[in-house]
């Protein structure tokens, strides 16, 4: 294939602006799939992705395009996830491209993630083609989106393509723009083979499948390749592309994107961002790669029944194979027994892992409230990362603690500035920027403690701005902070799994709210349950759940029996999902009570 006819690109967009729908249309229009083969969002493989209407894992397809003059092009389209939790996947995909399609919803205009994505594309020196989508909707306003493109992003708007991916409008224009405006890849096919590993997953039949972008040289089946960072070698068994069906090809050369199967047994041997080269004729210099995604949110995952511990470990191990961004290590809790402390990119990532464990691996789980990782600085200058609040008590000679801060970007219609400022202040935010993007739209930037936004900031922002404000964030640094440990006691016993680390100014309020919340989440027991919140030995809140004194069905006759039994069976199933701590039975919801304690 002629290198000059290859176009490697990604689609980037704020969530719900129509990325997957446009990808589907491009596949349909280039004949990658017949209409009857199209499922909606063909690139979203996981059930979860399709159910939630989101993309979690980037996917890649090769498409053939013939323009009006009969010129043939090969498009390598790399779909990207839209949620902020998965920003790292976006940067991974962009490293394999020369250009991007930047989708902007014509009814919503530029949003926080649009800006974040454009920044990523600019950093990677990529050509940007703006695509203004959803122009079929009555409320669409492509002209003002064009103005925003120029004013906010300094992107020339006359190149913008107008589409309705849903209705199939403007798809040819998009393909034409890709062919005309995105540069062909460069890179000498005659040089030693050098490729960027940008994705990998485990296939039970074939071993690890790696996705690569060839930078220089050429690769054929049978060649021996070396992974430069992990320093392992394999013989190439198969090369191919996804069209989107998996299609075997003879060779991959500079500028192309494709997969390699080489009998790789362990995911650990394939590091995302690694450089792959020819073992017999290696390249001199590895590619610079990019930084690894680090887990930001941590939570304890415990099997409801101890017998499922092994099953949980196996399931975590399998999930980890295809998701290097998530981490786990064994831990134990006085309250919950043996489990795992897991690290996630964000809350959505956590929910997805949790759901997959329960759904695909049939493990009944108890999840503790998520927390961020804190730095604990000792008087002897050592620094320890604390990913579980309960472990704080084991630490000696603490000098001070630091918590992670993020830079949050909010774009909002100006009438909501007031409520957003109040919200950010409440979350200990420090405003660093306020800029009118146009007379009606404002960009706000805040430095925020990550712990203040990780749980429900986004929901709060959406509800206080009727859904109009958008939000994106990136990690900045760790900062010294007055943090205390808030404990919850049930009938006088500390429940370690309910402890949290919190800013001291917020501890009293949070403690009271949490105790109140727990009162509604823990069912009545046959004895009184006293809930206390405490900082150190000082009790700051107390609630009582009265003992259950009456629980009796008035009637049970012939017609009721089956129904009542089924009702009891259901209750019994619910009871089995509760964890008994001391004598108190606690449902899963109680452990997540901290997620919604703002009382709003």
């Amino acid at each position: 294939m002629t290198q000059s006819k290859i176009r490697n690109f990604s689609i980037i967009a704020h969530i719900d602006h129509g990325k997957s729908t446009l990808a589907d249309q491009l596949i349909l229009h280039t004949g990658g799939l017949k209409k009857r083969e199209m499922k909606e969002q063909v690139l979203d493989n996981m059930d979860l992705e399709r159910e939630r209407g989101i993309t979690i894992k980037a996917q890649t397809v090769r498409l053939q395009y013939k323009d009006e003059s009969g010129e043939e092009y090969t498009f390598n389209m790399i779909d990207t996830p839209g949620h902020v939790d998965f920003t790292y996947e976006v940067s991974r995909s962009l490293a394999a491209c020369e250009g991007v399609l930047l989708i902007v919803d014509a009814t919503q205009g530029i949003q926080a993630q649009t800006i974040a994505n454009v920044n990523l594309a600019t950093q990677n020196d990529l050509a940007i083609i703006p695509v203004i989508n959803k122009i079929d909707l009555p409320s669409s306003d492509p002209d003002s989106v064009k103005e925003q493109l120029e004013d906010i992003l300094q992107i020339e708007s006359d190149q913008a393509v107008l589409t309705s991916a849903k209705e199939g409008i403007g798809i040819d224009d998009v393909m034409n723009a890709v062919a005309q405006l995105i540069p062909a890849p460069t890179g000498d096919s005659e040089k030693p083979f050098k490729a960027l590993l940008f994705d990998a997953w485990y296939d039970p039949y074939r071993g690890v499948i790696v996705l690569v972008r060839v930078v220089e040289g050429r690769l054929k089946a049978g060649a021996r390749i070396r992974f430069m960072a992990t320093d392992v070698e394999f013989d190439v068994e198969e090369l191919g592309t996804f069209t989107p069906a998996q299609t075997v090809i003879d060779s991959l050369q500079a500028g192309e994107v494709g997969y390699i199967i080489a009998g790789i047994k362990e995911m650990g041997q394939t590091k995302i961002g690694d450089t792959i080269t020819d073992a017999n004729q290696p390249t001199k210099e590895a590619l610079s790669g990019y930084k690894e995604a680090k887990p930001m949110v941590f939570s304890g995952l415990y099997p409801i029944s101890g017998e499922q511990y092994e099953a949980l470990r196996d399931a975590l191990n399998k999930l980890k194979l295809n998701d290097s961004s998530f981490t786990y290590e064994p831990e134990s809790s006085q309250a919950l027994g043996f489990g795992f402390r897991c690290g996630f990119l964000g809350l959505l990532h956590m929910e997805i892992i949790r759901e997959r464990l329960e759904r695909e691996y049939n493990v009944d789980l108890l999840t503790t409230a998520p927390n961020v990782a804190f730095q604990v600085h000792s008087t002897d200058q050592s620094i320890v990362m604390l990913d579980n609040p309960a472990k704080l008590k084991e630490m000696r000679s603490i000098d001070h603690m630091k918590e992670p801060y993020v830079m949050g970007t909010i774009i909002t219609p100006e009438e909501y500035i007031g409520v957003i400022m109040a919200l950010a202040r409440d979350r200990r935010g420090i405003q660093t920027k306020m800029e009118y993007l146009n007379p009606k739209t404002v960009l706000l930037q805040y430095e925020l403690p990550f712990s203040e936004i990780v749980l429900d900031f986004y929901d709060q922002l959406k509800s206080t701005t009727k859904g109009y404000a958008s939000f994106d964030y990136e990690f900045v640094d760790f900062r010294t902070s007055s943090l205390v440990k808030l404990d919850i006691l049930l009938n006088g016993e500390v429940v370690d799994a309910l402890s949290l680390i919190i800013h001291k100014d917020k501890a009293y309020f949070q403690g009271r709210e949490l105790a109140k919340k727990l009162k509604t989440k823990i069912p009545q027991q046959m004895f009184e349950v006293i809930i206390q919140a405490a900082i150190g030995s000082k009790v700051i809140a107390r609630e009582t759940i009265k003992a259950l004194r009456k629980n009796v069905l008035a009637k049970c006759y012939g017609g009721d029996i089956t129904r009542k039994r089924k009702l009891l069976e259901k209750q019994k199933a619910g009871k089995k999902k509760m964890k008994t701590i001391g004598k108190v039975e606690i449902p899963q919801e109680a452990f997540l009570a901290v997620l919604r304690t703002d009382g709003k």
Partner: protein
Amino acid sequence: MNEQSFGLYIHVPYCIHKCGYCDFNSHPIKRDEMETYVSALIKEMTHYSQKFSSAGTVNSIFLGGGTPTTLSATQLARILEECKKQFNIAEDAEITLEANPATIGSDQLKSIRQAGYNRISIGVQSFDEEELKLLDRAHGVEEIHCTVDRARESGFSNLSLDLMFAIPNQTLDGWENNLRQALVKNPEHLSTYNLTIEKETSFGKLQSSGKLVMPDEDHQLELFKRTIDFLKENGFHHYEISNFARPGKECKHNITYWQNSNTLGLGAGASFYMNGIRSKNTNLPANYIREINKKHTAVEFSESLRPRQAMGETLMLGLRMLKGISIMKFEDRFQTSIRAIYGDVIASLKEKELITIEQGQLRLSKKGLFLANSVILEFI
């Protein structure tokens, strides 16, 4: 209990009015449909009397509803006559008819009694005019007196009254006054039900919109306790969570349910339990009639219980009776030791003083009675 016997239930799904709390299978009166309904009942009866010809004697017949007295005396007599023709009815069989005040006249009562019904259960619910209104009943206090007195005059020497407590705003004294008025009628049997609100009823909707507020649990419990004390003082035997009787007048038919013994149910929405299989008929009278005319049965749902489910049900029902269940009978029935299955549960419930085992009977303790559901849950 004689293994070679069963109870027969017949459902009459018609009512002059659906009360706000009612979640039974009841439908508005349709005179022309009712005649075909009675014919369908008889067809269904014929089918099962042949199928279960060897099932033994019928110890009890219970016509429930809806309101059975929405049928004419002639129709009710015809049904009983057919039962007698088709089944082997025990000589001392208890034959109950449910009735609502204001649905039945003197003549009708007399002919029903003559037809062979020997027990009448009247849905009084309350002797307080305000409470009747609140409960959305179709009758007043005066009609209660009328109907009860007429039943006595017509020769019903076995009379049961249904009452309801925990009606919004009901005080302890108000409730005791209800009980007192009931006792004036000198009933052989009393059922006292804690008002329970089911989601899908019109009360359920009122409750979820905040327009109906139930008394708090503590007050409900006090009312329940007062019921037990008061009726015991007045010579009643508290034999099931919500049921009280003069000694010897316990409802045979309902005991059959609580012993989890065979019962055959006929009519729209009726349930039956015969030889380990539980089935239920379709609810809508019109569908029931159509099904019966087509194939003599109208079963909509049927399940054969696994041993563990059957054990759970036996305990769920048996523990409702204050004398509890006989461990020996349980073990005979399921051919296993009860401790092998429930040893841990029994030990922990005994430790919590929720159950007792005395003279081979496993029963709820006084404390356990008020927490019956929590106890039963452990056995499910």
